[in-house]
Every structure is written in structure tokens, then in C-alpha cells.
């Protein structure tokens, strides 16, 4: 059977925060762009995993007013979320600013952006199944939509899959941290019928007290430690976030293990919710209204790039001549499932993301964006958040576009990438 071939300039794999940024940027820059996404909607973790706030959009607070950190797509996307009522903020949470959003609203805004975009085709429900590298260049890939296969020939490629799936399928080296140190995954579910007035700060501390003492006394499993419940202030809705332990030999790219994670997430969600419904006044009338489409993996495979951002770079806020994007989130270490450990950079300095951290060391036309860019485990705890993903996505989309139009093996330069980002920016 003949497999239809799609020709394009740039293919972006993954329609999450990074992929959307890359695809829209490339399309606006004039590249014929194809976006592939395996779920039924775009947004990645912001929709499928029910992550409900965008982190990393603002500089770490040095003044009292929050300041958006990423000109271009991230700023524009955030503004659109707010203008359609899908987000409200920013909101200060401890020492950071976040933009709480509605997952369905995020999905709808993604749809708006792709519908408004010329030069962009999007294929949902499409899973990458094969990639062919010849002479150090990625030549073509194949994807399947429930068995209906298509081939894509592109000049430049952006891996925004989160799990560096395109890199992996290209047969090149990828990094993955050791099982014991990998960031633990999040499982987020929705409640309705919550008494939101009883979930204020005092109510949340009460919740912590109830859980801590119940775990200590053996009335609740220790998987419940680190549970966070937040009212969304949309009706009686709240989201519950739990971190999963992951077990020995934790590997989120292993099919058997990721299956176990999903089952464990739902089991634990029911156990914790049932317990809280009987013990916390805010949840007395609540019901569990939605599970996520998928568990929220925070860290898995990453690109091995020409450059690698280190934890030291994050903590020192090291300057870089090659910077094409910023990270503005602290290190949020979740190696344990009992809650995060925060490390802030010196003077709240942003992380510089160099072009070389987005560019494969082995395949000249392969780029990465989002949480799978080239960084070490420590740095990943800071750069994985969605605001940073949008910023690196924008840069990767620009780089891929330049490379596709010039079609040489010479890498696009940093000034070229920055100029193109500015040129197509609408915010």
C-alpha cells in the first residue's frame, strides 16, 4: 500500500506549550509547517494532565509588580488566555508568580491560534512511528492515525514531544536521569461541589494537618503526603494534585511502568478523595468530576545538544552570548513525592537558554523545545515549566525555519534567530 507523503518545511512533533509556540512561530515566519499531536487536543500537560497554572511566564519577583519575561508568543498566548476568560492573574504563590488557567480554555485558545495561522497544518490523534536519518540529517518520518499511515518529508524538525520521542526514534543519543533522581510525576484530578470558602489558607493548612496525622497513624497511605487542593474560583471546582512515588527502577518511557503510573494515580486519587470527603468540611459535598487524560510526567528523555544547560548555570544565572530564550523559574526539585524542594537562583537571575541547547549534536536539522531540551537533571527542574517551554519553543521554531529556508548544513546563527523571533512577534 502506498503511504501518502506530505512535504513541508518544518515538522513540529508535539502540540504542548513548546510545540504550539514552535509551530505558530515557524508558520508566521513563512515556513510550511506541520504540527503532529497524539492526543485529541493541543496543550500537552496544560490540558491532558490537568495542569492548571502556567509557570515561568514572569520574572522572579524583584519588584512588587509581576513582569512578563518572554516577548513574542508566550506573552501573546498569555494575553489571549486572559482575554477569553481562560486565565486570571498573575497570582503570587510564595516566591513565584503563576497564571492560573482553565484546561478546557487552554485547549480552546490553542485551537484559535492554529485556526488563525496560515502555513500551518495540524494532525491530531497522530503518533510518530518511525524516523529516518541519513548522513546526519533527518530525512523523513512516518506517523499513524489509528493505523492510517502518512510519511512526512521536512527540511527541519522540532522535537517538542516532552519525551524526546523524535530524537529517540531517530536513533540518536538521549539523556535520561537515574531512576532515583527523576522528577516524580504529578497526578491531577478535578472535583466539583467543593465549599471554596473553606479552602482558604486556613482550610488548606487544616487539610495538611488531617493528612499528616492520618498518615502518621496509619489511617491513610503515605502516598497522600504532598497532596495539594486548590479551588479554581470557577463555581465549586477544585483541583487536587498528588505526586506519585514511581517505584524502584522508575522509567516513565517504559510502557508497563507508565501503565502502572496511570492505575496508581487513579487508585490513589480515589483513596485520598474518599478520605478527605469524610474528614474535611470543604469536601463534604464534593464529587470527583474528572480524571486527567494522562499522568503528568515532569522529566524523562532529553536531547543531547551541542550545548547542555547545567544546574550551576541556573543557580548562578550565568550569562550567555548564545541565549535565545530565558527560563525564569527556580529549581523545583521533586525527586521525592512528598513535596517540592526549592532552590532559587542568585539575585533571582533568569536562566539563559543558548541556541546550542536546542540543537542536536548529531543530526544537523533536528531541534528540541520544551522540557526535553539539552540540560542536566538539576537544570531540568527549572526549565521544564510551560512558560519556559513556550520561550524555547518560539526559538526552536525560528531556528528550524531559518534552516529550512537556507537548506544548508550551517546552523542558523543566534542573531538570525533572535531577529526572526522579533520580526514575527505580535506581543
Amino acid at each position, binding site marked *: 500500500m502506498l503511504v501518502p507523503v506530505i512535504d513541508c518545511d518544518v515538522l513540529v512533533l508535539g502540540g504542548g506549550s513548546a510545540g504550539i509556540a514552535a509551530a505558530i512561530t515557524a508558520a508566521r515566519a513563512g515556513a510550511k509547517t506541520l504540527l503532529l499531536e497524539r492526543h485529541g487536543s493541543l496543550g500537552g500537560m496544560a490540558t491532558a494532565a490537568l495542569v492548571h497554572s502556567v509557570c515561568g511566564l514572569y520574572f522572579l519577583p524583584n519588584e512588587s509588580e509581576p513582569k512578563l519575561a518572554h516577548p513574542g508568543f508566550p506573552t501573546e498566548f498569555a494575553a489571549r488566555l486572559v482575554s477569553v476568560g481562560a486565565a486570571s492573574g498573575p497570582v503570587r504563590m510564595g516566591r513565584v508568580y503563576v497564571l492560573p488557567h482553565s484546561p478546557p480554555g487552554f485547549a480552546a485558545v490553542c485551537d484559535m491560534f492554529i485556526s488563525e495561522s496560515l502555513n500551518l497544518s495540524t494532525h491530531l490523534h497522530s503518533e510518530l512511528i518511525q524516523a529516518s536519518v541519513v548522513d546526519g540529517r533527518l530525512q523523513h518520518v512516518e506517523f499513524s492515525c489509528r493505523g492510517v499511515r502518512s510519511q512526512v518529508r521536512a527540511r527541519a524538525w522540532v522535537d517538542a514531544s516532552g519525551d524526546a520521542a523524535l530524537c529517540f526514534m531517530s536513533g540518536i543519543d538521549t539523556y535520561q536521569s537515574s531512576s532515583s533522581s527523576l522528577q516524580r510525576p504529578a497526578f491531577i484530578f478535578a472535583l466539583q461541589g467543593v465549599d471554596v470558602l473553606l479552602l482558604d489558607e486556613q482550610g488548606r493548612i487544616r487539610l495538611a494537618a488531617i493528612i499528616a496525622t492520618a498518615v502518621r497513624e496509619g489511617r491513610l497511605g503515605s502516598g497522600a503526603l504532598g497532596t495539594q487542593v486548590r479551588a479554581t474560583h470557577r463555581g465549586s471546582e477544585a483541583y487536587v494534585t498528588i505526586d506519585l512515588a514511581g517505584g524502584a527502577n522508575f522509567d516513565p518511557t517504559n510502557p508497563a511502568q507508565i501503565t502502572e503510573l496511570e492505575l496508581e494515580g487513579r487508585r490513589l486519587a480515589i483513596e485520598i478523595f474518599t478520605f478527605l470527603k469524610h474528614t474535611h468540611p470543604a469536601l463534604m459535598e464534593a464529587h470527583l468530576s474528572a480524571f486527567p487524560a494522562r499522568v503528568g510526567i515532569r522529566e524523562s528523555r532529553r536531547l543531547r545538544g551541542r550545548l547542555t544547560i547545567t544546574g550551576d548555570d541556573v543557580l548562578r544565572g550565568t550569562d550567555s552570548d548564545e541565549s535565545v530564550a530565558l527560563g525564569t523559574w527556580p529549581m523545583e526539585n521533586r525527586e521525592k513525592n512528598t*513535596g517540592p524542594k526549592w532552590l532559587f537562583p542568585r539575585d533571582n537571575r533568569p536562566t539563559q537558554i543558548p541556541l546550542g541547547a536546542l540543537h542536536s549534536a548529531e543530526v544537523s536539522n533536528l531541534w528540541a523545545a520544551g522540557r526535553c531540551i539539552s540540560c542536566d537533571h538539576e537544570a531540568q527542574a527549572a526549565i521544564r515549566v510551560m512558560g519556559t517551554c513556550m520561550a524555547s519553543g518560539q526559538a526552536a521554531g525560528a531556528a528550524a525555519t531559518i534552516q529550512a529556508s537556507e537548506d544548508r548544513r550551517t546552523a542558523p546563527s543566534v542573531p538570525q534567530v533572535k531577529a526572526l523571533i522579533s520580526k514575527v512577534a505580535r506581543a
Partner: protein
Amino acid sequence: MNPDASSLAAQILHLVQAELLETGEDFTLDSDLFEAGLDSMAIMQLTMLLEREFGVSIPENLIVKSTFSTVRSLAQVVVQIGLK
């Protein structure tokens, strides 16, 4: 603050800094923990850490904001409960 609570407070401060929060150079036993980023989840963690490190179980009715407002207030509560 009595000597027991003083040395305990120093140990608690160290524990908080090592496991939970980064505090500035001028962070003291009387600095506001919530300002420094302590939230309900961190309270849960801290309660379990105190149990692990000092063998103390803070009863549910004392896991309240005032207990955790400063390292000093926390140390005083812990001393009240009594170390095992």
C-alpha cells in the same frame, strides 16, 4: 526561650533550609516562614520531617498557622509537646 528550645530552634532552622526552603542571609528564628514560601504542602512535609528527625508528633489541633509562623514558634510548640 529556654536552652532546650534555643538549640532545637537552630536545628529546625537548619532542617527547613536543608529540605524545604531557601532563606536569605538575614533569615532569623523570628522571620516569617510564610513570607519565605512556606505553604500548606510544606507544612505537611515539615511535620513529617520533625517526626523523622526529632521523634516528635505534632497533634492535629496544633498543626495551625500560628505554630508554623516562625522557627521560634515551632520550636516552642515542639518543646511543649516534649521530645521522645
